[in-house]
């Protein structure tokens, strides 16, 4: 699955393909298919209970330490929220009503929740339904309390005027301008991974005891001890109780249902659920089933605790689950199919929780019910050996056999990854949905060593969210970061600090009238000034965000599971935690768009003088109306993604200028605020504010995504895409963060064992090149049909026939049809 395609779209595509699944009737999968069939077509519902009981408690605890208030609110929710046990499910624990559902986080959006909620079912993308009586609860109980209390209200007031106008519409701070966009106000935390293993091994009882011991050991005269550490430790005790209470309520319900159940098989299952929930997560897990249930309670409760960007990730499941799996398999009390069944019970549970975004900006960033609850497989052990085990293969198998886009699966790749692992990863990718995405140890490990990690910490990293990584006990930075529209910087260089979308208003810098520029250097400097101005304001935003977030958000359970929080007795949202590494980022949106535009200007305007600057700007203003020939000329000039040093040199320089800035100013923030290229779906809304660009892109259309080439601009095949990516990176800087890279293949390209072998060697080369991330789209029939309808977007789609190859869009209609028919056979 691509980060940049909506999962919903992918699901629809699979249905159109009619990929009837032979695995439906197999022992390991029957149960999960049964549950999935029941829920997958339901429109998500808004469940208000979390928002209601959270607010109820927060109303009563004003004036106390925030982390303690949060823990008390969690306890209130745990005691009162409805608990459910779904038919056929073996794992229990939901944050809301049955079917697909989303829950409310009024601490983020309570002040406008009453207005927004009325629009939810009318949304074109990601609609939700809400019960009228629940809407009433929002209007009367939840929203009124939060007015004037939310983070985003404080932030809007705190931002300096120059920063504000790049961030929001000055007259409506709920609406982003998508220029220097902050993302901290629509989620409480960056994407995050918890140390699940800690709970599996020690239970919340163990964490609670640790907090109690620390409480007993506090210096009774210390003001910090009394005012900061004590409330934190009390919060840990309270939240450990909260999770236990919640689990026990499930145990009680299961026991009650078991008593009434007439089907002997289900009766037994319910009895086991009751027994399990009475034991975990309070106590250490004793077997695989308990470990799975314990993990599930933790991840669901973490979703109740706060809205983490792109949902809490699952960490290295093949590692921390393995000892339980191995022991049970060896004892003969668990089969592979039973393990698969439990995993898939978890996947269908995940699929029912929908990350509900209320704010319009949040919605635009996460079109189509986005979710990235990454499960990491493979990689290395803490002492640097290959970490692959039987569970790694089981998780890959589940992804191949159970056609669900949950969970997001991430495979770590390193230089010594075993052949079987690479082979199975490639085979899984070939299934067609693009899972797993790949993350490169050879880039990540040395880079994070240079940022201060130890070998054992970084060897044990987990993939988190879209393409990021976390060291669950070392990472301490939770402030969500700025998304910068580099294409808007380019537009401002063309229009002297203004954008067509926003009329005459001066938003950026006045860098001069480009018509008066006599050489390329002048234009480049104007662009660079705009780019640096954006980064400057992103850092100003972040400075305010870091300061304000700690006053608004707390994460007691997450903190209880973090070594450094427990050691220092502080909540994870505290701006600086001793011993932590603060890994943040700022995001470059529209990289390919800007590179190609600058290359076209450099070559056609200044070097070859084939196009006048006036002629160019006139054509851009009118969105190339009547200037199709000029547009074609621009589109055919050198583009990033082709291993062509002309655009790649510009790419390298843009990257470098950004890195230089953060190298200089990141320290002031106490954060590695590093350059990242991972857009979610945001390159679409960011494109909506940018008029036509000199690479021939039409006004208001999507920008290029991540570090990928502009749509259809990479016409030299996949090796050139990797090499351009490599060429544009500055390996002499440590200020780089994740780069997302999408690569498309036709099924024919990877057909059969030979195709798998070649995909494996492609992946190994990607690993050699130390690129951060890659994901593959194996293009099928549906895409070829789309290419027929919109050839402009698919200019680079190569179709192979032995001894001959062609660009799909160069073929005539009937030959395309011929090929579509053939590719239908190829579809994997």
């Amino acid at each position, binding site marked *: 699955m691509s980060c940049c395609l909506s999962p919903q779209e992918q699901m629809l595509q699979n249905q159109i393909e009619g990929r009837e699944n032979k695995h439906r009737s197999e022992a390991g999968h029957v149960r999960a298919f049964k549950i999935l069939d029941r829920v997958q077509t339901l429109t998500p519902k808004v469940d208000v209970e979390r928002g209601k009981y959270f607010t109820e408690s927060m109303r009563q605890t004003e004036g106390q330490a925030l982390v303690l208030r949060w823990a008390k609110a969690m306890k209130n929710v745990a005691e009162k929220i409805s608990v459910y046990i779904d038919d056929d499910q073996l794992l229990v624990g939901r944050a809301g009503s049955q079917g697909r559902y989303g829950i409310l986080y009024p601490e983020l959006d309570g002040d406008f929740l009453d207005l927004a909620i009325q629009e939810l079912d009318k949304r074109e993308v990601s609609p939700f339904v809400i019960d009228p009586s629940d809407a009433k609860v929002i209007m009367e109980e939840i929203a009124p309390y939060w007015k004037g209390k939310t983070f985003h209200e404080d932030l809007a007031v705190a931002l300096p005027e120059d920063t504000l106008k790049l961030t929001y519409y000055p007259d409506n701070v709920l609406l982003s301008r998508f220029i220097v966009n902050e993302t901290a106000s629509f989620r409480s935390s960056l994407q995050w991974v918890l140390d699940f293993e800690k709970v599996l091994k020690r239970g919340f009882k163990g964490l609670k005891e640790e907090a109690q011991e620390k409480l007993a050991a506090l210096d009774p005269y210390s003001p910090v001890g009394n005012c900061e550490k004590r409330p934190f430790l009390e919060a840990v005790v309270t939240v450990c109780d909260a999770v236990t209470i919640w689990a026990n309520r499930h145990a009680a319900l299961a026991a009650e249902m078991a008593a009434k159940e007439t089907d002997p098989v289900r009766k037994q299952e319910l009895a086991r659920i009751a027994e399990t929930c009475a034991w975990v997560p309070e106590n250490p897990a004793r077997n695989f089933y308990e470990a799975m249930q314990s993990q599930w309670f933790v991840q669901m409760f973490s979703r109740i605790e706060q809205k983490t960007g792109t949902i809490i990730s699952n960490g290295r499941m093949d590692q921390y689950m393995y000892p339980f799996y191995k022991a049970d398999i060896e004892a003969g009390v668990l089969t592979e199919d039973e393990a698969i069944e439990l995993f898939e019970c978890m996947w269908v549970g995940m699929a029912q929780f929908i990350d509900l975004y209320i704010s319009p900006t949040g919605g635009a960033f996460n079109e189509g019910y986005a979710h990235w609850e990454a499960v990491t497989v493979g990689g290395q052990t803490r002492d640097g050996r290959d970490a692959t085990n039987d569970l790694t293969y089981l998780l890959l198998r589940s992804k191949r056999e159970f056609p669900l886009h949950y969970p997001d699966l991430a495979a770590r790749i390193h230089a010594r990854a075993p052949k079987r692992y690479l082979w199975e990863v490639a085979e899984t990718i070939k299934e067609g949905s693009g899972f797993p995405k790949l993350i490169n140890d050879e880039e990540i490990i040395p880079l994070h060593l240079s940022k201060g990690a130890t070998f054992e910490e970084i060897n044990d990293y987990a993939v988190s969210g879209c393409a990021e990584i976390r060291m669950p006990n070392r990472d301490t930075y939770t402030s969500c970061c700025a998304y910068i529209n580099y294409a808007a910087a380019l537009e401002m260089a063309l229009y002297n600090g203004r954008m067509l979308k926003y009329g005459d208003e001066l938003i950026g810098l006045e860098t001069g009238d480009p018509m008066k520029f006599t050489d390329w250097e002048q234009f480049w400097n104007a662009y660079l000034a705009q780019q640096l101005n954006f980064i400057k304001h992103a850092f100003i935003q972040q400075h305010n965000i870091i300061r304000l977030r700690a006053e608004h958000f707390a994460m007691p359970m997450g903190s209880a599971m973090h070594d450094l929080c427990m050691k220092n007795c502080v909540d994870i949202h505290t701006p600086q935690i001793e011993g932590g590494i603060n890994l943040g980022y700022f995001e470059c949106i529209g990289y390919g768009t800007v590179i190609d535009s600058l290359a076209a200007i450099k070559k056609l305007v200044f070097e070859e003088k084939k196009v006048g600057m006036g002629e160019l700007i006139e054509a851009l203003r009118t969105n190339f109306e009547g200037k199709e*020939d000029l547009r074609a*000329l621009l589109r*055919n000039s050198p583009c990033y993604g082709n291993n062509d040093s002309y655009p790649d040199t510009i790419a390298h320089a843009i990257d470098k200028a950004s890195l230089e800035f953060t190298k200089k100013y990141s320290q002031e923030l106490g954060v590695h605020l590093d350059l990242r290229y991972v857009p979610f779906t945001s390159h679409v809304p960011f494109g909506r504010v940018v008029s036509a660009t000199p690479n021939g892109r039409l006004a208001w259309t999507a920008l290029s995504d991540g570090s990928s080439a502009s749509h259809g601009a990479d016409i030299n095949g996949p*090796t050139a895409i990797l090499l351009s990516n490599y060429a544009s990176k500055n390996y002499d800087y440590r200020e780089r963060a994740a780069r997302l890279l999408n690569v498309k293949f036709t099924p024919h390209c990877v057909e059969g064992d030979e195709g798998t072998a*070649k995909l494996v*060697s492609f992946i190994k080369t990607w690993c050699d090149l130390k690129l951060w991330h890659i994901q593959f789209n194996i293009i099928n029939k549906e895409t070829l049909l789309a290419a027929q309808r919109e050839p402009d977007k698919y200019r680079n789609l190569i179709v192979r*026939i032995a001894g001959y190859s062609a660009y799909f869009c160069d073929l005539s209609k009937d*030959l395309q049809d011929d090929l579509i028919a053939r590719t239908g056979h190829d579809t994997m």
Partner: protein
Amino acid sequence: MAPAAPQAFRPRPAVAAGAFDTRNRLHKEKTLPTLPDTKQKGLVFNIQKYSVHDGPGIRTIIFLKGCSLRCDWCSNPESQALHRQLAYNPQKCLGVDACKRCLDVCPHKAISVGEDRKVVVDFTRCDNCLQCAEACPADALNVYGYEVSVEQALARVEEDDIFYSRSGGGLTLSGGEPLYQSEFALALLREARKRRINTCIETCGNVPWEVLKEAGRYLDSVFYDVKSADSARHARVTGTGNERILENLRKLREAYPGLAITVRTPVIPGVNDDEASIGAIADFVCTLPGATYELLAYHRMGTPKYGYIGRTYPLEGVGNLPEGRIEELRAVAKARAECCQAAN
């Protein structure tokens, strides 16, 4: 040995005599001073990265212009002529309401406006001056063929070196008949070998033995086309008999026992899609120790390119092989191979 003279071919649409200097053909008298390999120049029409179907691993294919056969089913018609030539893809034309650049520059009035407001090229008037292609912003008017040196071509090939290391891939020469520009092709192969690049060639075998013999010294693997074991039929559909092709193949096997040879037959409806034809070729392959044999199913994917260069497709109206036919013929070939292995 005499080169395959163009006159020996069946009449085909005339192609203008080349502006390209053919001095670097081995069989021509060496009246000019010999250049170092890296400086040798040749005419190619494509350098294609990430080829995964033509030889081991991830490869780069250099497509050379020029061919000594004229197969009816040729899927690279732009490869046949040994000169740069104009191509026109109307699907990419912006239409004269948006752009008239080509109309303005053509000195021969070879370009006019069609009913759909896109341009039409009269190839009988065109002398491949290529000014229109230079002017076209949309790449609708394009050129097949450009001159590169061995140095330049191998620089492109070596860009993907890191992919070859991992996959066991390398360079494949294709065409056209890559050995038609023999001196250039041999210089490419020699230099590639020197640079430790894995080398492969796709050849029709219809070249002087000396050329093939020399090439074999620098090759790791060969795809060798045999279209028909019947010389008369071979001549009817390719313009040339098969004697030299079969003879060369036999000699190649003898001269280079370690060379990986894959014999390929494009299975063309009405030409060789019968069991007897395939069986006969398979029997011949059996006489070549270690050679493997594979069948490629006929496809029409090259058809548009005939239009682009102003030609009509010789096999217009011929459909694909019936479903399952290629598998049946593969079974025939396999049975023959097993039979002859048993006999040996």
